[in-house]
């Protein structure tokens, strides 16, 4: 029930809705109002005592009490009642809604009654009850035991991912990192330059949403996406420049056939010349971008964005995945809406098959080079956002990797040749993920020969945790 769903979310700070860009920090957020019951329903007002009493449902035959009506019904079957008596009386058919006994509560009023008895019980406990249950790991408190149990299962297993790609298992270190991360700095610079207030709000929303650590889950997607993107050193700049040009090689191709792809091409037109990384999706594209060979696929580069070109800064979101959800984004976005990784279409985080999307890019690249339009439909189809499990993604990714891998042999792809040179596992993984990243990694490795420790340290933060052989399968 609505009430329960909302109440279960810790702090009520992030509520997934289907409204894009509406994930603002909890205190600022207006949720869909819970408890807007059927006007025909019968309103029941129970006292706190009665509400919290267990075994309210009594069997008329043997007098045994049950906490839930369903349990009672199950029990009654055991009495071998004649068929007619097993039926509920017509009186019972009328829907019941319950109001909260707490007078100051918004749900005390019949117009805001909640429809489920268990729901109202939990609501009452959570909002007006004493929080007796406490998580050991993070000392968070709960009034309802089942909430506490549910939390304890996942506490500490969540992973928080910064825009720069670093993964954290601890929320506090994630927050601190985020505040100092270059990704944040650049992004807000961009946001400031954006004209629309809506964009700004959305960014904050997106970032906040992300910041509060929407669980990434342990899916492969996280593994693919995390990467050694952290662009702290400026040695990345050079790498990125080259990467950009590499990209422009194929994005400049005319070969893209379908509308969608054309649109994508158009949209992904040059972002801005000065920008190395872009975390903005070319969403809410208020400006068609000038054509230029210099653009990046925003989602490929986690984060850092130089402040040189404010104009294109369209909305927000930290990492956008182009080519997915082509159809799914709402009318507010023109053409291709490139949802952010942290978009509010939430299964996004779990399911945004970054693996699939990345491979999508690889596919596009291949398509561009081959000039094939026939493959468009097939891989477009495969871009559809899947709310499926990670295994599907894994399969897709290995399928795509094969294609991707085949690109390496093409010498006209400067990035491809880069790949061949690199033999380290790290670079390999990067290649799988996105080739500019690999390029950057390669450069960085060269630059930091003395400071090998630096790369290792950074990678030590999150890489090992995410290197799964399955993601590298098939094409090393």
């Amino acid at each position: 029930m609505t009430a329960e769903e909302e109440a279960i979310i810790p702090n009520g700070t992030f509520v997934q809705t289907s409204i894009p860009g509406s994930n603002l920090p909890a205190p600022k957020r207006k949720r869909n109002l819970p408890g807007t019951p059927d006007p025909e329903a019968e309103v029941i007002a129970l006292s706190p005592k009665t509400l919290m009493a267990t075994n309210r449902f009594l069997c008329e035959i043997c007098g045994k009490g049950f906490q839930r009506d369903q349990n009672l019904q199950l029990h009654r079957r055991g009495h071998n009642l004649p068929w007619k008596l097993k039926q509920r009386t017509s009186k019972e058919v009328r829907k019941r809604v319950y109001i909260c006994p707490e007078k100051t509560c918004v749900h005390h009023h019949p117009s805001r009654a909640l429809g489920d008895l268990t729901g109202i019980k939990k609501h009452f406990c959570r909002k007006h009850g004493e929080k007796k249950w406490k998580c050991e790991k993070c000392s968070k408190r709960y009034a309802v035991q089942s909430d506490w149990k549910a939390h304890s299962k996942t506490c500490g297993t969540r992973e928080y991912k910064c825009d720069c790609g670093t993964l954290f298992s601890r929320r506090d270190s994630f927050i601190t990192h985020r505040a100092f991360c270059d990704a944040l700095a650049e992004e807000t610079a961009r946001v400031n330059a954006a004209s629309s207030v809506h964009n700004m709000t959305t960014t904050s929303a997106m970032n906040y949403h992300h910041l509060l650590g929407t669980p990434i889950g342990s899916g492969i997607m996280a593994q693919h996406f995390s990467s050694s993107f952290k662009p702290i050193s400026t040695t990345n700049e050079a790498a990125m420049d080259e990467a950009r040009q590499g990209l422009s090689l194929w994005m400049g191709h005319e070969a893209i056939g379908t509308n969608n792809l054309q649109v994508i091409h158009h949209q992904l037109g040059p972002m801005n010349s000065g920008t190395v990384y872009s975390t903005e999706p070319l969403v809410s594209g208020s400006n068609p971008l000038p054509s230029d060979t210099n653009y990046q696929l925003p989602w490929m580069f986690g984060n850092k964005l130089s402040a040189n070109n404010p104009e294109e800064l369209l909305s927000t979101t930290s990492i956008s995945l182009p080519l997915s959800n082509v159809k799914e984004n709402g009318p507010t976005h023109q053409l291709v809406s490139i949802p952010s990784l942290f978009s509010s279409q939430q299964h996004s985080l779990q399911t945004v098959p970054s693996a699939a999307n990345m491979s999508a890019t690889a596919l596009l690249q291949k398509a561009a080079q081959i000039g094939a339009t026939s493959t468009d439909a097939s891989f477009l189809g495969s871009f559809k956002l899947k709310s499926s499990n990670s295994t599907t993604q894994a399969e897709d990714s290995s399928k795509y990797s094969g294609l991707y891998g085949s690109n390496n042999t093409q010498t006209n792809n400067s990035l491809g040749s880069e790949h061949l040179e690199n033999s380290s596992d790290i670079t390999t993984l990067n290649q799988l993920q996105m080739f500019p990243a690999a390029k950057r990694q390669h450069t960085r490795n060269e630059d930091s020969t003395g400071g090998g420790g630096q790369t290792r340290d950074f990678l030590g933060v999150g890489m090992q945790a995410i290197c799964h052989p399955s993601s590298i399968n098939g094409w090393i």
Partner: protein
Amino acid sequence: MQSPNNNHHQQAQNSSHTSTTRSSDSGEPSAPNNKWASTLLKECAKAISDKDSTKIHHLLWMLNELASPYGDCDQKLASYFLQALFCKATESGQRCYKTLTSVAEKSNSFDSARKLILKFQEVSPWTTFGHVAANGAILEALDGEKNLHIIDISNTLCTQWPTLLESLATRTDETPHLKLTVVVTASTVKSVIKEIGQRMEKFARLMGVPFEFHVRSDYLGELTKEKLCVSEDEAIAINCIGALRRVAVEERSSVIELFRSLNPKVVTIVEEEADFSSNRDDFVKCFEECLRFYTLYFEMLEESFMPTSNERLMLERECSRSIVRVLACELEENIEGECAERREKGSQWSERMKAAFSPVGFSDDVVDDVKALLKRYRAGWGLMQGDGHEDQTGLYLTWKEEAVVWASAWK
């Protein structure tokens, strides 16, 4: 590397009779691993105090042979303390300190400072312990207030504040306005504070917390109420992390009085548990306490970081400057606006604070938060409430059962 050590040690014992008696009694000549550094260093300190120049030379030479800043803990301690002893013996402490500091400043940058402290906080609760305790006390003391003014005098580069900002944004119904005034003294901090401030501002915007960032570069002893720009309608919290020890010993009372005059809702003090203050006139005692504390610290660093960690090396070098400053520089010297870090223990700080403030205990929630924090790190860390004496002020972070950091709140 062990046999050469052995040889040296044995040779030394054979050649000089007066010193061998002591060395062979206290040390374990056949096991150079076993705290040889501590023994030799203390011997040397005593020799310096006695002005026994033959012995001084002898021990300095031995230490020099065995020490290395890239070796194991003993070798590192030997190396850095040797440096201080040498400066003390040759009265070149100030010059050495200036050189070390300028070298450090050259390689200092926002990026390196950030990387260093974040990495340190990731592997060790040494600083985050104080942050969690202080933030908890601050949030509770300022609960319900609309205009918050935190005066931050810390050495942790504002890494304390993101989590506080996040709490302000999420845990309160109405997000208050926060003004953060940062007081910086260390030269290495001054150069990066502007960038830090920008990050804080951006982050606060992200969190949706109305925020102002101010910086003061005054020596703590010279601060005044006016310089801090406090206004009447603000609820003030004063946060001192590793700050009071940078005040000259004789000026500490007046700083506390200054705090009192600001009428804060809460004052949070976090300091490292060591006493270089009451023994400052006794070189050997001070030396031994210094050695005790930094041995704990170095061992903690060794067990927390990866062996090849650059960050750990940076932290160790920072210690080496501190050690030279405390042991080899004249007491009254005020080098470039900074005083020697004459640490005091929690009980000593408490005595000082009690002149103007009364202690505030940390609530159960905050203690739970600290416990939860410690669980997120490797084993070896513990929590102690009070120091066992009747004055149960503050929380102690313990490393291998030894109290290392003290956190307290006052009003």
